[in-house]
């Protein structure tokens, strides 16, 4: 069994780079970009942990994974132990290990990051989870639910099978409640399957994590839009649920409201990514859903977030001649993860920062042919603390384009607020909750994730789902 080397020796081990597919190969396929650590790499990397008395890294984690302890178990070569330790706080580590912005969370708080590179906590989380998933596949259905408590006899409806709903369901089933997850689409996983592309989060991983929940007793129902197929009231009155969690996610994609957005060839990122990821348009005509041909095309993605990076990298993989990001601020203000920006650059994506579209140009069939843009400069900081982009007069220019993908965020989904006005929403249509309990204005109904915060991250949604699960548990005890 391995042990931690001396502190001095530990400080000399360099952070192990992530093995990746070659950029020029991967920008033509949909396989995962990062290949994951080998056992040797993981062991070496885990040994870098200083095992701080006060592990600040945990403060950086929205779900407070006991990072120091699971790293210690990796070093002790007890991977099942490490997995159990992670699962005490995070039921979906294979997903979070891939898509969490660790550099702004746990890894930013790592003591090592002050002088050099932090421990690669996210990659180690992924390593432990992947090994565990592989072993689970080779030794099917052990007693996964052995840790589950005795049934409480209480029933909870979870609306939406995205990260918030899954995290909430995991904790509730662990607490012994009956949990039913309702999903509007035909596939489970929410944004994990329709939004995040295969090359960043393989769908097989999502499926395995969800199967784990199903084996633990969570019931999943697809093709069910709460508020339409089944009313929220009916869940309580007819279906016998005692509480509900709303994790319906972000809704209506935002557009800039500039001329020409109605043209063919102008997509929302949601539509473009849903066609590719959920409907598998990149395999048209084997799959029936079409998508505009990216082969040899010039594609512009408007925005600088993770969704914009996903969309632009998808377009490259679908054969675009030129794939570009058009962003009104500078790279320093981009909300996307640094890793995603770097990956995009390596894959040949052009970055046109400090540039904003003014209108789209089209032919007589209203099919996109180009766009007119204006150059921007940065002024003083705005409400968000980021420097405000200001147009530079006279800097307008036009460029030829085949496809535009608008990735400037989402509004809220109006479905439930249309049918259930008693659930209080703010001026943007997001559900108002008590931040400590995620309780909405309606008794027994809790909410979390993007429907509350607006577009955010997978791990924040999961954190909200877990907070709500704890509060639902308390609520059910009083019932």
């Amino acid at each position, binding site marked *: 069994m391995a042990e931690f080397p001396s502190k001095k020796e530990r400080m000399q081990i360099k952070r192990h780079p992530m093995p990746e597919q070659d950029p020029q190969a991967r920008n033509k396929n949909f396989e995962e970009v990062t290949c994951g650590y080998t056992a040797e790499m993981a062991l070496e990397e885990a040994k870098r942990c200083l095992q701080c008395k006060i592990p600040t890294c945990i403060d950086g984690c929205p779900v407070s994974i006991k990072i120091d302890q699971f790293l210690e178990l990796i070093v002790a070569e007890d991977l099942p132990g490490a997995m159990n330790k992670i699962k005490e706080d995070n039921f979906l580590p294979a997903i979070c290990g891939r898509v969490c912005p660790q550099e702004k969370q746990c890894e930013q708080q790592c003591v090592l990051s002050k002088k050099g590179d932090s421990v690669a906590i996210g990659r180690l989380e992924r390593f432990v989870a992947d090994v565990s998933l592989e072993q689970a596949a080779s030794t099917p259905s052990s007693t996964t639910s052995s840790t589950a408590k005795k049934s409480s006899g209480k029933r909870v409806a979870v609306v939406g099978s995205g990260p918030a709903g899954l995290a909430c369901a995991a904790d509730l089933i662990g607490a012994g409640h009956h949990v039913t997850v309702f999903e*509007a*689409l*035909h596939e489970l996983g929410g944004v994990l399957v*329709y939004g995040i592309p295969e090359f960043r989060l393989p769908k097989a991983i999502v499926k395995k994590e969800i199967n784990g929940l199903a084996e633990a007793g969570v019931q999943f129902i*697809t*093709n*069910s*839009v709460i508020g*339409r*197929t*089944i*009313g929220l009231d009916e869940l309580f009155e007819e279906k016998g649920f005692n509480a509900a969690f709303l994790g319906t*996610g*972000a*809704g*209506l*994609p935002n*557009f800039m*409201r500039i001329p020409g*957005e*109605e*043209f*063919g*060839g102008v*997509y*929302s990122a*949601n*539509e473009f990514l*849903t*066609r590719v990821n*959920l*409907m*598998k348009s990149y395999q*048209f*005509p*084997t*799959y*029936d*859903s*079409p998508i*505009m*041909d990216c082969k040899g095309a010039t594609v512009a993605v408007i925005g600088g977030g993770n969704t914009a990076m996903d969309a632009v990298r998808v377009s490259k993989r679908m054969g675009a001649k030129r794939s570009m990001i058009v962003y009104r601020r500078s790279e320093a203000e981009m909300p996307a993860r640094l890793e995603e920006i770097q990956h995009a650059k390596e894959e040949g994506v052009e970055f046109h920062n400090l540039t904003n579209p003014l209108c789209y140009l089209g032919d007589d*069939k*209203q*099919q996109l042919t180009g766009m007119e843009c204006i150059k921007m400069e940065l002024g003083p900081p705005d409400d968000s603390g980021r420097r405000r982009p200001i147009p530079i007069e006279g800097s307008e220019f036009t460029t030829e384009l085949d496809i535009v993908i608008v990735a400037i965020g989402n509004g809220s*989904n*109006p*479905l439930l607020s*249309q049918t259930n006005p008693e659930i209080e929403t703010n001026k943007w249509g997001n559900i108002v909750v008590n931040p400590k309990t995620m309780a909405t204005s309606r008794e027994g109904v809790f909410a979390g994730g993007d429907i509350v915060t607006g577009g955010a991250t997978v791990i924040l949604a999961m954190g909200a789902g877990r907070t709500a699960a704890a509060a639902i548990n308390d609520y059910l005890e009083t019932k």
Partner: protein
Amino acid sequence: MFKIKKAEFLSADVKLFEIVAPEIAKRRQAGQFIILRLDEQGERIPLTIADSNPEQGTVTIIVQGIGKTTKSLNQKESGDSIMDVVGPLGKASHMEKFGTAVCIGGGVGSAIAYPTAVALKEAGNHVITINGARNKDLIILEEEMKQFSDESYITTDDGSYGHHGFVTDILQKLIDEKRELNFVLAIGPIPMMRAVAEATRPHNIQTVVSLNPIMIDGTGMCGGCRVLVDGDSKFACVDGPEFDGHKVDFTNLINRNRIYQGLEQESLKQHECQLLEQADKKEE
């Protein structure tokens, strides 16, 4: 899986299905639609619900075989299944006692106009139905429409049945006769809905059309179904599918529905080739 309880052709290309979907049947209102996906490789397509039977737990759709998905669907028989059905989606038709309501259905659009026309009658309106198609064989729901309508008309483009001409001829005649028309519902091909809206516009007759744009999720997530209404971008899936016909930008709707025309034809062609191959193999 959603079982097909009944499947029968109403005309050569148009087929009626009763699908077992109890939750949808229970809550569905006139004007709402479902989205279905036939199989693992299938696309999601929206179809307006023509009728429902809450006791039997079925919803009725009437499908015209045009593209690969609708043609494949029309090959299904009772006892077969559809992989995914979700609904009821969209806002229900706005119902009130307008006075005299004209319900116009063009081709398979009659199937969609039918439930709203019935609801208008139940709301106490004097209901006039105009049921049009290219020829006699393509007229559907003639008897059903006649049964509850106060007045009903049939038109065919080729004159093989009823009035020789377009649905708008009858509408224009009613307008010219100075009939007091308080509400018009038009559902059918886009050029027909546009023609109806243009006929009623000078007379300020409230005119509602039901739109069927390109759609994926149907719950307001993708934005593919956006239509220009009064210059503003609206999502047919959550803001519609019914809109004020005088405010809809039909040209844009036509153009947006053509985005995938080439690909759709390619998909259909490949599908038909496969069917031929299968048929050849069977013969061998």
